[in-house]
């Protein structure tokens, strides 16, 4: 035991003397989290720019104007930046990607609407943008439905009005009364829905995210994007740190220091245990640094201390176990170069380090459950965002501890066997 602790302490001392490589690894999750926070804001609400929309009004009539006004008032007015252009200007600007969308109201639009004939609004979307043109499309479709419904309700008075306008003579009073009466009923019938809000529609975000539904009676905190991103990003950094420390074994063998160490009264098993222990300890220290940065730098509420402690230890055990096992399975440094980073990135990718698992399609979400990173990142996310306690993350802890134990022991044995055989 003394020999193991000696090797462990020596490795930690060496890392403390030259901590740059570990610090650089720690910068990976910090950078990823920081950039996401900078781009999307600490509360995850992007300060969306006004959507630039070009409007070509080839109609110049009442209903074209109505659409235009509808899009420039109230909430839509705050959301859309509408610029009226000619058809040629619009096409040229859209070809250059100068706006998110172009809405073209066709010639004769008002006349067609009055006559109850089909009328098509043309929408041209910017192909290099993904989100904003869809917003404009949805707004335009909704406006079209509202206009369509309105013209159907007021169809009779509008038709009458059209025939009056087309007459060469002054309209008869009875004709105007007919128009007014027809319109009056429509207004009264519609009024209840508008003024009394007979049908209301609320669009709300569920109190609990999908992935945290298992938490018993959680406390939902104010959303902090850093708390949302950091657990996943952290996993990339921690896995690479374990990899960095264990790679030291390969390098020591190459440099001959491992042989020298084994010449001392130290068994191969003790040497391997010392190195694996050092990987665990250094990664634990690194995770504490990342947690401190999360708390002090990003204002993340670290939640229940006991849950955090157990989740952190389980996570480090899992990371150390998985990487130890992988090192046990590979044949040398060249194989490590080829395999280790790829394995870490693949686990991180599926585990939700780069795309939150809630955002993935169901098949990828299901596949993500097979990545150990998922259980580490998801558990941490629950602690940060929902004040989850030990009982709320018991499955995560169980999975992580089991994975850790089931990989660290065979992994260490495999490495010992390789060293004993003169492998690597």
């Amino acid at each position, binding site marked *: 035991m003394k020999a193991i602790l000696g090797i462990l302490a020596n490795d930690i001392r060496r890392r403390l003397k030259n901590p740059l490589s570990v610090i650089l690894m720690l910068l990976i999750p910090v950078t990823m989290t920081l950039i996401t926070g900078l781009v999307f804001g600490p509360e995850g609400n992007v300060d969306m720019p006004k959507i630039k929309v070009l409007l070509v009004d080839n109609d110049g009539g009442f209903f074209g104007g109505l659409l235009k006004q509808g899009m420039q008032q109230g909430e839509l007015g705050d959301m859309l930046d509408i610029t009226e252009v000619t058809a040629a200007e619009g096409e040229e600007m859209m070809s250059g990607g100068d706006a998110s969308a172009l809405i073209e109201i066709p010639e004769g639009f008002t006349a067609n609407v009055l006559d109850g004939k*089909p009328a098509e609004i043309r929408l041209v979307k910017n192909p290099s943008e*993904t*989100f904003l043109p869809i917003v404009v499309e949805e707004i335009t479709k909704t406006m079209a*439905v509202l206009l369509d419904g309105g013209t159907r309700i007021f169809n009779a008075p509008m038709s009458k009005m059209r025939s009056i306008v087309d007459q060469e003579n002054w309209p008869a009073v009875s004709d105007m009364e007919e128009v007014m009466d027809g319109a009056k*009923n429509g207004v009264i019938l519609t009024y209840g829905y508008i003024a009394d809000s007979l049908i209301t529609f609320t669009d709300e975000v569920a109190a609990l995210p999908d992935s945290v539904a298992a938490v018993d009676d959680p406390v939902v905190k104010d959303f902090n994007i850093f708390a949302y991103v950091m657990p996943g990003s952290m996993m990339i950094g921690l896995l690479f740190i374990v990899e960095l420390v264990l790679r030291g074994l390969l390098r020591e063998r190459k440099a001959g220091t491992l042989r020298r160490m084994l010449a001392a009264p130290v068994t191969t098993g003790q040497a391997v245990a010392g190195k694996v222990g050092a990987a665990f300890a250094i990664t634990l220290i690194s995770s504490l640094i990342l947690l401190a940065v999360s708390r002090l730098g990003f204002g993340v509420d670290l939640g229940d201390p006991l849950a955090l402690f157990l989740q952190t230890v389980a996570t480090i055990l899992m990371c150390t176990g998985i990487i130890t096992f992988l090192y046990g399975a590979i044949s040398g440094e060249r194989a490590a170069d080829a395999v280790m*980073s790829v394995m870490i990135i693949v686990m991180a990718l599926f585990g939700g380090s780069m795309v939150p698992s809630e955002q993935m399609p169901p098949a990828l979400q299901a596949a993500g459950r097979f990545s150990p990173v998922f259980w580490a990142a998801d558990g941490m996310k629950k602690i940060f965002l929902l004040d989850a306690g030990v009982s709320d993350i018991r499955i995560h802890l169980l999975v992580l501890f089991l994975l850790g134990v089931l990989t660290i022991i065979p992994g260490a044995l495999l490495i010992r066997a390789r060293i004993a055989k003169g492998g690597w």
Partner: protein
Amino acid sequence: MHAIWRIASCDFRLTMREKSAVLWIFLMPLAFMTFFGLSFGGSSGQTPKATLTVENNDDGYLSGDLISLLAGENYYIQMSDTLPEGRDPVRTLIIPERFTDDVLGREKVELALVRDRGSNRNAGEAASAAVIRSIARLISGLIEIENGLVNEGSGSIAVRGDSLYGSLLLVTREQPGMAAVLEERIDTMLVRPANITVVSERAGKGVEIPRGFQSSVPGSLVMFVLMTMLFSGSVLTAERKDGVLRRIGMSPAGKGDVVAGKLIGRIFVAAAQIIFLLAVGKFLFRISLGSSPGGLFFLMLTFAFAMGSLSILFGAFLSDPDQVTTIGVITSLAMSALGGCWWPLEVVSAPMRMVAYCLPTGWTINGIHRLISFGMGTSAVLPHIAVLFLFGLVFLVLGARRLKWDV
């Protein structure tokens, strides 16, 4: 010239012999393209088709009509009582009890759309708009029927003065047989085609691109070429550390030849990677490469030049190969994210967009969009080519001036 060629081809061969390099150059970007393409399958110019779960607590026919209208939108409708076990709904429309009676009776009704946190935002916004449109169509249909009955002089619903008396519910209760007639009328109205419609198209000459891969292919390409080049900076540092570079310097090749050879070798690697990834994009993910192969060639060439020069700069400035790799990862993650490889720049704030245009990645992504998304010609990306060339020139001059034979 001969020396430059020898150094370049030697570097290229050595890189391609490394298993790890091949994995990072060809396989990892492929995995990223696939993963991100599938993950963001809904984030293209098309309105995403998502699933809407409906919790229908009403036993009348109007809720059925509303659901039919929603099904006519861009949605898969999943009733909550038929949801497979263990699968949570992502967004749920809750239709309250007595919906039909309350709507017909002009009583207040509240519909709710509940979205899970973290669910696809685009699909959520589209769901909200689809529900609003369906409600609007239902209401306008009902008002039309009410209007018709008022005009017919029905006693159960009438306008007297400025007020409305009665309701469709009263009509169904007071006039036997009217319930079935009303239901049929409503059904007929709701299936009528709309008079006012919206036709959508894409600007430019670009052809339709499969969803999700539109952004994942260019984004992953730019990120991994950058990463490969920055990793190759560590090879240069290792050569300085191991004395390999000094040995090359002892040969008749001058420093200029060495720098040029190293740069061209890196451009070869980047070019091989770009060609492979574009071919994968074209033939596996079936994306369009635009209508200007010349424009794409020059854009990619200058991007490769800029990144190759950045690799020289990294290799010249840093003295530990491991540090180059780690700093390379951090730099490439930051430059990719800020340059628009991870998310579309349209959703970021104006200052962050400005940041994107201070980086070669931002210019490259924008150039690719112009060529592929808009189908523009070479002239549209001439500024991008010029800026990337300038970036490359600055990196190269700084790197070459700094480069020493050893660390």
